[in-house]
């Protein structure tokens, strides 16, 4: 208890780290939301680069925090909180974090078959799209014609996953280089 009568919450270095990375993800998310998109839900997903980098550098739990904070704070700042866009975004994030969680612990169990940033990124993009699509089908447009879009969306997710994975690889290399040379990023 402090003198003022409230209990002080002590922040750990991990909290600062998560906040720092989440802020980066939110910024990218907001900048990207200004770009027009031909189909709702179809976008590059550059904020996921940050999630992949955090996953590779600090593990799945931190990545989960960053991903969920990105969806929550991003939607509050853009003004889409609790709208269909938010629901799609959240279901995509939850699906991709589940897939990443399975892949992450699989990689730890079998280090010979571990995934790199590119594999995680493609997997996350595909799971994100599937989760988002399932939510769109169940909640928004329960029409079988929606399935005609799925192959195109999944192809786009593959392409975007590869691009994000390449950016994440470069980002991780850079962070590790800075960590080794002693300056903080």
């Amino acid at each position: 208890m402090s003198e003022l009568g409230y209990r002080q919450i002590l922040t750990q270095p991990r909290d600062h780290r998560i906040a720092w990375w989440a802020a980066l993800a939110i910024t990218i998310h907001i900048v990207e939301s200004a770009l027009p998109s031909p189909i709702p839900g179809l976008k590059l997903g550059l904020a996921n680069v940050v999630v992949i980098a955090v996953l590779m550098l600090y593990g799945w739990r931190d990545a989960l925090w960053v991903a969920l904070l990105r969806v929550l704070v991003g939607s509050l700042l853009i003004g889409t909180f609790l709208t269909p866009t938010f629901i799609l975004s959240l279901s995509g994030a939850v699906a991709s974090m589940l897939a990443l969680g399975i892949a992450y612990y699989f990689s730890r169990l079998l280090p010979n078959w571990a995934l790199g940033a590119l594999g995680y990124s493609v997997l996350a993009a595909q799971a994100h799209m599937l989760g988002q699509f399932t939510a769109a089908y169940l909640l928004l447009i329960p029409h079988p014609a929606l399935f005609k879009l799925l192959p195109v969306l999944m192809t786009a997710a593959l392409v975007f996953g590869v691009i994000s994975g390449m950016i994440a690889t470069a980002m991780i290399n850079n962070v590790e280089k800075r960590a080794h040379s002693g300056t903080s990023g």
Partner: protein
Amino acid sequence: MLRRGDYLVFLATLLLLPWLYFTLWGDQRAGAYAQILVGGDQQALVSLHQPQTIEVEGALGLSILEIVDGKIRFITSACQGKQCIHRGWINLGGEVVSCLPNQVSIAILGGEQRFDAINF
């Protein structure tokens, strides 16, 4: 840079995508059988997956039908207008070609029906 697990992900994706295109974009409306009618009575029920030519005796004379690659058409007809021949190939569930003068008609059965009923 690439690890073995990455190749697993790529392999799974490259198997998933063609499967998605094949199952979701494939034509689900194609029919499996053709019903051949002469004057309203069923003359034959034939599979569209067995290539053959069929001779049907109509009111005016002989009509010859051809089945190739899951589709069927009139190739000869004893009628005057040859409308039935000009209709060309049909293969989707619910499609019908009929030669009114010769009273021979073909209806495709099976597949996703596009129409509930057709009136002539």
